[in-house]
Each structure stands twice: as structure tokens, then as C-alpha cells.
């Protein structure tokens, strides 16, 4: 298993560790609910060094990215971050990524941990196939460390060590800055549904940033949060996880990614997706709530009229809402909010209903 630069710190905090995407990661330090609630009310600090960062630069960088990304990046400004899918010839999702424009002809693609090598290979293959010699693709993942600080107090805490006007940084925007004197990219974004930041810096120095944030954050109630809370937070916020909601046989239109699919440009899978948009999708990802007792989990069958119609892709007990929530694929005729379904939990059936996403929205 691979270890992030922050591994020893997690052990020192007595975190329960697990294997995730080939990495030894903290699941929880105290409890998932405690870390979840603390992130929603104060602030949480997450080790996300395991994610991938791929740089694409040069005069043909945009052309290469336009070819592999579902999103039209032509109008992307320096400092803007765009969510996108990387799709295959059938429009199936290879990964969902964020793309930062860091300069003219300079982009950074941030990938999930488990998919980073596949994404890199795919981008390189596309570069070869299109003869885009003036696009340089470099895997920076091992040289970049990343932490997320999320929650209502994230800005207040991070502000103390960041150069530049953090208050003026808008959501889905990033700025090149210095954090405690170290060059860093600071993005106002995250995976929790709260205000917060993703901080990228040299892998060799991410530990100093972690320590500084923990120290400054202490008086504000900042607590480290593990993958357990990361999952309950993102699910409440209606955000998807590659490997659960998405895989190569799922298209952006079948999940909640129609908005990052720009058919007005050419890209791998565009024609298949255009056809699917015209024909209409047959299955759709929906959010649901259990109205009975029980907790739905990944893989549990979803029933309508006593027949299995789909499966739960992600499910948990929502600490904020105090109920069991989840995401599932259902045939389109069952996708309307209010539709009654059943979830098979072990050998019993729990009543559930389709609800709009997100389950939780922060007060602004």
C-alpha cells in the first residue's frame, strides 16, 4: 500500500486506517459522525494527497484537453476550475475530474486516486492518436501534496497563513499564492457541500501546512476528518463517487452530469452521447430516502412493484438529516421525486421514496 506524506500524523492521532485505491488512508480519528458534524459546523481537515494531478501544457494543450474532456474548455479563464468527465468512445465515464487553467497553455487535471494511472494513459494515448506533439503531459501526482479544509470556519483559519485575498476568491476559482511562504495553489472548492478550500503544494512540505492548519485551527475547533466523514458529507451534498455512481458503462446523462457535457464541440464519445440525448436515457441516477427503518448500502437491490429494478450505488445514515439516504439507478419511469420504491435490506424490504438532490444544501 502507498502512504501519503501525512501517514505518520494519522497514526499519531490514532486514526483507524484502511486501504483505499491502493493507499493507506484514515477512515476516522474519533468517529465519523463527530467529524462529519464538526465539518458542517466548524471545520474539518482532510488528507487528500492520494488524488492525482496531471499537467498538460503547450500550444496544443487546449486542443488535447478538448478532445478528451466532455466539457468545453474554450472559454476557460486563468484561475477558473471546471468539473468534467473523461469519456470513452461510447460516452462511458472513465473518470470525473477537475481542470484548472493555471496559465495560457497550462492546465492541471485533478483525478481520483484509483483512476489516476488510467487517466494518464488515456490522455497520452489520445495525444499519440491525434499527433499532438506540442502538448506536454506530465504526471505530477507524486510531487504534489493536497489537503482540503472545509466548513464555515475554513476561510478564517486558512486566511492566517495564505497570501492574497481569500475572501475575494469565488467558488470554483483558484489562485496561485503562498501558504506559510510556500508556493501553493488554493482553490475555493471541495467535496462536502460546505464553503472550503483545496490546497495544493509540494508533497515534501504538505506536512508543514497540515501542522500549521491544525495548530491555528485548534482554537477555532478544526478537527481532522477521515474518508468515512468525507463519504457521508459528499453523499448528503448529492455528490457522486467514481466507482460507485460512475464507471465506464455509465454515461454523463444517466447520472447528474448532463451539465458538464458540451455537445457543441468534438470529443471522444460525443456522437454516442448526442444519440443518447436524442433517444433519451433509459436509466437514471436518483436520490432516495428510506421512510421505514433501515439503512441502504452499496449493492442493495431496489424494487418497484415487488420487482428488482436497480441497485443502490451509495447509501448511508445521514448525520445532518437523521435519516438513511442513498443514490440508486432506476429506469426513467421511476425517477420522479415522490416515487415510492423499496430497498431490500438483508431479507426485509424497507419503504423508500425518490427525493430531489441534493439532500443537504448549506445556508449561504
Amino acid at each position, binding site marked *: 500500500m502507498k502512504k501519503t506524506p501525512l501517514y505518520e500524523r494519522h497514526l499519531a492521532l490514532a486514526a483507524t486506517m484502511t486501504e483505499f485505491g491502493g493507499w493507506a488512508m484514515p*477512515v476516522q480519528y474519533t468517529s*465519523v*459522525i463527530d467529524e*462529519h458534524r464538526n465539518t458542517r459546523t466548524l471545520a474539518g481537515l482532510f488528507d487528500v494527497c492520494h488524488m492525482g494531478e496531471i499537467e498538460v501544457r503547450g500550444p496544443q494543450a487546449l486542443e488535447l484537453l478538448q478532445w478528451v474532456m466532455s466539457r468545453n474548455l474554450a472559454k476557460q479563464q486563468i484561475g477558473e476550475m471546471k468539473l468534467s468527465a473523461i469519456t470513452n468512445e461510447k460516452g462511458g465515464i472513465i473518470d470525473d475530474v477537475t481542470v484548472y487553467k493555471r496559465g495560457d497553455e497550462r492546465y492541471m487535471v485533478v483525478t481520483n486516486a484509483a483512476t489516476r494511472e488510467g487517466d494518464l494513459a488515456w490522455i497520452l494515448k489520445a495525444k499519440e492518436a491525434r499527433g499532438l506533439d506540442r502538448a506536454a503531459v506530465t504526471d505530477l501526482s507524486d510531487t504534489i501534496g493536497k489537503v482540503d479544509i472545509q466548513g464555515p470556519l475554513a476561510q478564517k483559519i486558512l486566511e492566517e497563513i495564505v497570501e492574497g485575498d481569500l475572501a475575494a476568491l469565488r467558488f470554483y476559482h483558484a489562485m496561485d499564492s503562498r501558504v506559510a511562504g510556500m508556493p501553493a495553489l488554493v482553490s475555493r472548492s471541495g467535496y462536502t457541500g460546505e464553503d472550503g478550500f483545496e490546497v495544493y503544494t509540494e508533497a515534501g512540505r504538505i506536512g508543514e501546512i497540515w501542522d500549521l492548519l491544525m495548530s491555528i485551527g485548534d482554537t477555532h475547533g478544526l478537527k481532522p476528518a477521515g474518508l*468515512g466523514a468525507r463519504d457521508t458529507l459528499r453523499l448528503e451534498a448529492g455528490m457522486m463517487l467514481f466507482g460507485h455512481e460512475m464507471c465506464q458503462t455509465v454515461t454523463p446523462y444517466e447520472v447528474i452530469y448532463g451539465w458538464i457535457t458540451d455537445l457543441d464541440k468534438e470529443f471522444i464519445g460525443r456522437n454516442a452521447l448526442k444519440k443518447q440525448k436524442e433517444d433519451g436515457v433509459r436509466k437514471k441516477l436518483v436520490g432516495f430516502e428510506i421512510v421505514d*427503518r433501515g*439503512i441502504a448500502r452499496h449493492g442493495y437491490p431496489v424494487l418497484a412493484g415487488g420487482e428488482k429494478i436497480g441497485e443502490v450505488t451509495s447509501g*448511508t*445514515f445521514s448525520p445532518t438529516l437523521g435519516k438513511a439516504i442513498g443514490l440508486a439507478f432506476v429506469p426513467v419511469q421511476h425517477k420522479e421525486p415522490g416515487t415510492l420504491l423499496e430497498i431490500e435490506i438483508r431479507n426485509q424490504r424497507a419503504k423508500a421514496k425518490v427525493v430531489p438532490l441534493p439532500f443537504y444544501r448549506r445556508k449561504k
Partner: protein
Amino acid sequence: MAKPSPDDRKYTKEHEWAKADGGTVTMGITDHAQELLTDVVYVELPAVGRKVKQAQPIAVVESVKSVSDIFAPVSGEVVEVNQALEATPELVNKDAFGEGWVARIRMESPAEFDGLMTAEQYEEHIKANPH
């Protein structure tokens, strides 16, 4: 640190406790077990009247991240369940040896009960097997 295991009852390797009162056994999970689970958010209780066999799953306890079986410490018939766990599953965390009890079983065979671990043996067991 887990609360010490009271010696007014017996224990299983799977971290259940069983307290006998005549022919009926009250059962639950130990404080050590609830500490490993952390926040219990759901308990699936057995139906009253259900017949159970020793070491078979009798209930399910869920945390946010995990689903764990609870096993019957003795064979017999379920005569009562702790309804309070439906609304307040966190009682299992707060008071695993008391208010967090799970079910009462009318024992089939007192010999089974006698064969369970003592508090001291259980404490040894968890020292040797921290998980």
C-alpha cells in the same frame, strides 16, 4: 478505554454479554464492542417469539460505515426486545452493559450458559485480540 466488564454476567468471543435471571438471559454487546463500532445509528432487533440457536446471528447493529451481526449467546426463544433502541440506538454506545441491552432469551440449556466466558476470561480475550 472500554469500561471494565462487570462480573455479574458471562461473555462470548464475539463480544456479547449474557446475564441470567432464572431461566431468562438478558443480552447485549460489550463496551469494548461499542467502542470499535463507534456511533451506532441503527439496530435491527429480532422478533419476539423467534427461536434462536447459540452463535447464530440474532440482531444487527449498524454504524455509519459498517453493518455487524450480533450473535445469540445461548439457544432459546426471544421473549423481549429493547424497543428503546429503535428511537435511540446510541444507548448501545452510552450504556452498553445497561440501557443498551438488546434482547431477552428464555434459555433452552443452562449448560450452554455455564460454558460462556467469565468477565476475567473475556478481558484476557480482548487483550489478546484488540480487534
